[in-house]
């Protein structure tokens, strides 16, 4: 059914359709309307789940860690300072190899206080063992959330669905909301590698031998590699059922492109418009949108090592370059523009100018678009 939804409400509906049993979260702008919507659906009896109000994000993720450990499909959502406040639990969840899903509405980290988008908060999860996806719009937020449960539960890795503050979270768009039967067909009952059970005596997270622990990390790393195939497979299957195909990346006019722009998130839409304009002028440019930051689509990027590449970043690693600039730069040579930090608006006019300068060879190694 086509309807008009904000990105946050699209996530809330996806959570309902995924038959989540436990939701726990703590208010933080701009995430709050996700869980407010869920609380409302539960109160009205439209959704059969427990909503747990907690006193902090650390407890929000702890509650869903507990419920996921007990075998229940679980969800939380946060932003910025909330994500940082739950950071310890983020690692506890992933190192425990527990599947669960969290929406991260990307927001600038203070001080000064700032509620607008950049991707620095989400990028802090990179090393932790979470699968990290980033939605471009409300439809993708909904679709990725439904896929996230399947992917997370096939790999026993937690899954973070990112969406940009306000630009996606609070912007109403036409969204195709699938019906329950079709989602049920796509998304099987929850499965997980292990769960706590009163009839099964074993300890979770007890002290282990160093070498054994390192082996667990290697296994996790291998499963992250395996995740690439699972993500593409689940994305293809999703496309067959719902008509919208997903995967690690979205390729936009890259096949014959001499110049390729790599980026992630909501502003990819504006950048595509700029690509269209340059294309009309005969410039062979394309866009590679990273839908996933972890696992990192290294093999896809390697395919383009004979092109000129520009990475546009909405997060920065102090003392180095843009976060994705580092990541992509590890695979192929690239220029790096850092833009839109702290919610600074970047529109298609900016992209047009940026890409023109890139094509003319005027961009330095790292440029701040300010």
């Amino acid at each position, binding site marked *: 059914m086509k309807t008009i939804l904000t990105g946050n409400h699209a996530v809330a509906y996806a959570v309902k359709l995924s038959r989540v049993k436990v939701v726990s979260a*703590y*208010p*933080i*702008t701009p995430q*709050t309307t996700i*869980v*407010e919507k869920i*609380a*409302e659906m539960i*109160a009205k009896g439209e959704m059969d789940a427990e*909503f747990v*109000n907690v*006193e*902090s*994000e650390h407890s929000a993720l702890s509650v869903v860690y507990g419920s996921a450990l007990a075998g229940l499909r679980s969800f939380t959502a946060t932003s910025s*300072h909330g994500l940082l*406040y739950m950071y310890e639990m983020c690692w506890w969840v992933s190192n425990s190899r527990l599947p669960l899903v969290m929406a991260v509405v990307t927001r600038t980290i*203070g*001080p*000064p*206080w700032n509620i607008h988008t950049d991707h620095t908060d989400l990028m802090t999860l990179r090393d932790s063992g979470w699968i990290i996806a980033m939605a471009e719009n409300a439809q993708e937020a909904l679709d990725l959330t439904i896929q996230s449960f399947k992917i997370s539960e096939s790999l026993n890795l937690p899954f973070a669905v990112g969406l940009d503050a306000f630009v996606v979270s609070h912007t109403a768009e036409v969204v195709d909301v699938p019906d329950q039967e079709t989602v049920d067909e796509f998304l099987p009952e929850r499965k997980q590698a292990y769960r706590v059970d009163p009839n099964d005596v074993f300890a979770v997270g007890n002290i282990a031998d160093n070498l054994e622990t390192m082996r667990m990390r290697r296994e996790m790393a291998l499963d992250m590699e395996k995740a690439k195939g699972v993500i593409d497979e689940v994305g293809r299957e999703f496309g067959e059922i719902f008509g919208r195909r997903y995967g690690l990346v979205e390729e936009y006019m890259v096949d014959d492109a001499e110049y390729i722009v790599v980026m992630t998130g909501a502003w990819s839409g504006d950048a595509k418009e700029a690509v269209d304009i340059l294309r009309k002028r005969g410039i062979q440019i394309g866009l590679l949108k990273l839908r996933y930051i972890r696992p990192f689509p290294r093999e896809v990027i390697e395919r383009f090592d004979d092109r000129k590449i520009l990475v546009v970043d909405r997060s920065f690693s102090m003392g180095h370059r843009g976060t994705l600039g580092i990541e992509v730069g590890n695979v192929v040579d690239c220029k790096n523009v850092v833009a839109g930090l702290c919610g600074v608006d970047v529109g298609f006019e900016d992209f047009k100018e940026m890409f023109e300068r890139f094509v003319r060879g005027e961009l330095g190694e790292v440029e701040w678009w300010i």
Partner: protein
Amino acid sequence: MDLRCVLLPGNPSCQGCPHAIGLKALSVLENPIVVVPAGCTTIIAGFNPKQSIDLPVVHVPFASAPAVACGLSKAYDNVVVWMGDGATDIGFSTLSGSAIRNDNILVVVSDNEAYMNTGIQMSGTTFWKAKTTTTPAGKREEKKDLALIMLMHRIPYVATASVGYMRDFVRKVKKASKIKGFKFIHLHSPCPPGWRFDSSKTVEVARMAVKSGAWILWEYDGSFRITGMSRMFRDKSKRIPLTEYLRVQGRFKGLTEEDVRTIEERIDEVWKLLDVLENTINKA
């Protein structure tokens, strides 16, 4: 009462904002430094490079305020934390830790009984049965009594206050500022958009809370005593009916008679407990 207003005109608080009323009491402090965690006051305090609180203000993460104040207190007297009820949920261990250390700071919790800055979600102090966006059917959980919890930390000064009775609040701030160690004031702060009443009625609603016995003014400074207007309302027959206080607020819409009776019983229990404290912790 002649207060220099430390909150400047043109600040972005809502009309009838209780924090905006309460903040004025900080005017009686000598050279204070104010520590403010995330909350409505973050917004009220204004946009860089200007600010609307005419005092040095340190903005800090949501859960950190008393600990930051502890650090500052190593260099300065009169360090004040001005925080919301929500900050005492997420920052409860920080608050408790600071009290246990008996840090030389004053903590004022301006309690509007919900997370207002993020759009009215329930907090630990949200009133029984009140509707918020995360308790759309009314709050089922208990209401935590912060001031009593802080009293049990055996700190030198604890009080409750109300923006409806500023003279009483100002007296308590002044008194607290003369005491060394950890001082705690729990300020009752009715919020027009959050509780859904007319923005001209903040003081009136705050007073109704006291007059109905739902909010009780007291103080502990070695002895425990009911203070100000609340002394009169020990006698239940002198109180206004609880429903008058509840009825002016949209957040209680749809309360049943039984709900009101339950709330009333809870309030009676608090009075009984305070009565015991007054008769027990009494040096005189």
